[in-house]
């Protein structure tokens, strides 16, 4: 077999595999995690201090080792910087008692964001209350306790950059909190 034929075979095989591989790769990146409807009203069972009475409160649920959530926290940092005191942010890092999640990269990154409360969610109690199943899921509640937004703030799995979710939150926070404004976006991340 001459070089020309061999190179064409290589081109055909590699080209096909690359096309399929990239397609699957993108499909993986753009496959959203599981999501159920969050409570329309801020649940009374949860500590009322969590809900800010002046500004909308954004709840963020994170898996302590999910690398995709790194991008969520990066975007959260940008969002907080952009919105400042117009929004209150609380991050819940889920963990089980048997796991040593203390001091993991996600927790460190979350605590590094200014004016953001970080709390440990032992046995995912809070996450279960709000129906959060995927790391990176956020929920925005108005000071009155009604749900304004639910979903992720990255455009794909672990991908930084402008996302529809973050844009939506910013739009809601900076506008009038109208119930009809409620929006739901997909969340990309590991299962909590």
């Amino acid at each position, binding site marked *: 077999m001459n*070089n*020309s034929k*061999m*190179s064409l075979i*290589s*081109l055909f095989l*590699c*080209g096909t*595999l*690359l096309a399929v*591989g*990239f397609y699957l*790769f*993108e499909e*993986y*990146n*753009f496959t959203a995690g599981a999501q159920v409807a969050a409570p329309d009203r801020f649940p009374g069972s949860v500590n009322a201090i969590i809900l800010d009475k002046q500004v909308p409160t954004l709840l963020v649920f994170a*898996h302590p*080792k*999910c*690398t*995709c959530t*790194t*991008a969520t926290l*990066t975007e959260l940092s940008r969002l907080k910087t952009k919105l400042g005191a117009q929004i209150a942010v609380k991050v819940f890092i889920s963990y*089980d008692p048997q*796991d040593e999640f203390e001091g993991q990269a996600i927790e460190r990154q979350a605590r590094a964001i200014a004016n953001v409360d970080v709390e440990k969610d032992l046995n995912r109690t809070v996450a279960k209350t709000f129906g959060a199943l995927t*790391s990176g899921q956020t929920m925005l509640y108005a000071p009155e306790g009604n749900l304004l937004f639910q979903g992720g703030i990255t*455009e*794909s799995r*672990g*991908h*930084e*950059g*402008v*996302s*529809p979710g973050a*844009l939506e939150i910013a739009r809601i926070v900076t506008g009038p909190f109208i119930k009809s404004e409620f929006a739901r976006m997909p969340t990309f991340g*590991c*299962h*909590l």
Partner: protein
Amino acid sequence: MEELSQDAQKRIDEMFLAMRSENYFRTDKLFSYLMIAQWMFAIGCAVFLTPSAYNGSVATLHPHVWAALGLGGLLTFLPCSFIFLRPGEAVTRHVVAVTQIGMSALLIHLTGGRIETHFHIFGSLAFLAFYRDWKVLVTAAAVAALDHLLRGIYWPSSVFGVSAVNHWKWMEHAGWVLFEISFLIPGCLKIQEQMRAVSERQVKLELMNERIEKNVQMRTEELANTQRQLMQSQKLEAIGQLASGVAHDFNNMLGGILAYASLLKEDYANDPHLVSSLGVIETSAERGAELTKKLLAFARKGNYEHTIVDLQKTIEEAVSLLEPSLDEKISVSIDLDKDLWPTEGDSTQIFQVVMNLAVNSKDAMPGGGKIKISATNIEADEPYCAIHKSVTQGNYVRLSIEDNGSGIPKDLQEKIFEPFFTTKQPGSGTGLGLSMVYGIMKNHKGAVGLYSEEGHGTVFHLYFPRSRKVAYREPASARVAVVSKNFLRGQEILLADDEETLRNAGAEILKRYGASVHAYEDGALALAALEKNPERYKIIILDAIMPKMNGIETFHKMRELAPDAQFVFSSGYAESSEITDLRNRFAVKFIQKPFKAEQLAREIMNKKAA
């Protein structure tokens, strides 16, 4: 600006293509290393940034690691396989361009879409510009644009952060790539231009080197040719000296025989039987004298002189030597213009040139033919030189040697003057004849022209520059036809000759014509005799070559003592240039030994009459 030949242009193209190809190979190799390094980097990124994916507390290997291994491997293998199988080819470069942009896309994903990683695309374009092939940049840019277009259609949020975007939005991103290649493409074209300029300079340098080498070779050949000529002339000189010595001694012997035979003929004029026998002796001696004359003519070879040349005499001598060796079927004719301009040079060398060319003509006519030797005056003006390329403008005596032999083929005409070039059978020719002709004509500041047609014949034109000097001409009015007895009555003649026989014979002849002869065996004794009484001798005969004081030296000293005396030189050697010079300046006479009584008397008588 020097015009380059088609061959040179072709060489420039070849060199440019080779230079470009070498760059393609080099850059291919560079990319093969880069691809492997990028693959390793992609695996590193995936392992470091996204090692695992989680489902609760259950960890699995992150799909990014698989993507880095699999997609990164394919993106590396594909271009490397082309670089290995088809290095330097255009298709390889384009495959490298496509996969390099693919690698950028993979790295951007693996690093979580960081803006910093997007600069990998711009770096890749700069790296691809190493190929100096603008088409590769277009391919890379097209792939980047296509990637954004497809993403805009299928996963719009991955590019623009929003789900629904304008269909032309992808161009905004592709625009940055176009912006970069709009600088890189002119750069590539400029570098290609410079590569061509370098090729052109290189070819010009090569051509110059070739010319220098050719010149060196030509000069070396000329030097070798000169050395061969020198060796040949040294050989000829040695033979010439031997022949000259033999001829001289032989002439002296013949001189005695001829002089005394002619004296005896006068003494016994009444005895027909004796006169007849003496006539045979005289004829034989004269034939011997002719032979020595030829020997002397040959002997002068190698002893080059620069004098006014008598072309007529030189050509006749050459023909007389050549004729005995010619086939009966070959005829030689001589046709010389009457008023040929004088030309300066060495008659022996010219003799040699004529001989060489005539022998070549003879060899070109194995079945017989005609050789024509002619000479004419030529005023070579611009139109003439335009036709006869070997000649520069000026006045020449053109000597032509023409034959109707086999002719010289066109492709050989340029080579025939090269040393050792011969078409003759081994052993028949040295290949030096025509190169010597060329060298001799160059020495004479002349030129050689050649015209030949295969099957019809050849003509060689030898151009000798015209000389402004005037040749010695025997005054016609001074010629005396009949020698009267006693015409030397009362004359006292001083004779100097180292050869006793000739001295005595000369004295005897002159006495027969009434002269009183005082003969001496060398110039010094004769000079001493003249010093005693300078007014006494009106005719002085000097042998040119004598021991103690030769004829020329004796002449100069005697002329101071007796400026009105008439001088006659005699010699067993051929007439030297010094004697020719004296003949021109002081009208002295020269008589070639051997001579008969009447010849000597006639020369003396002519001298007296003059």
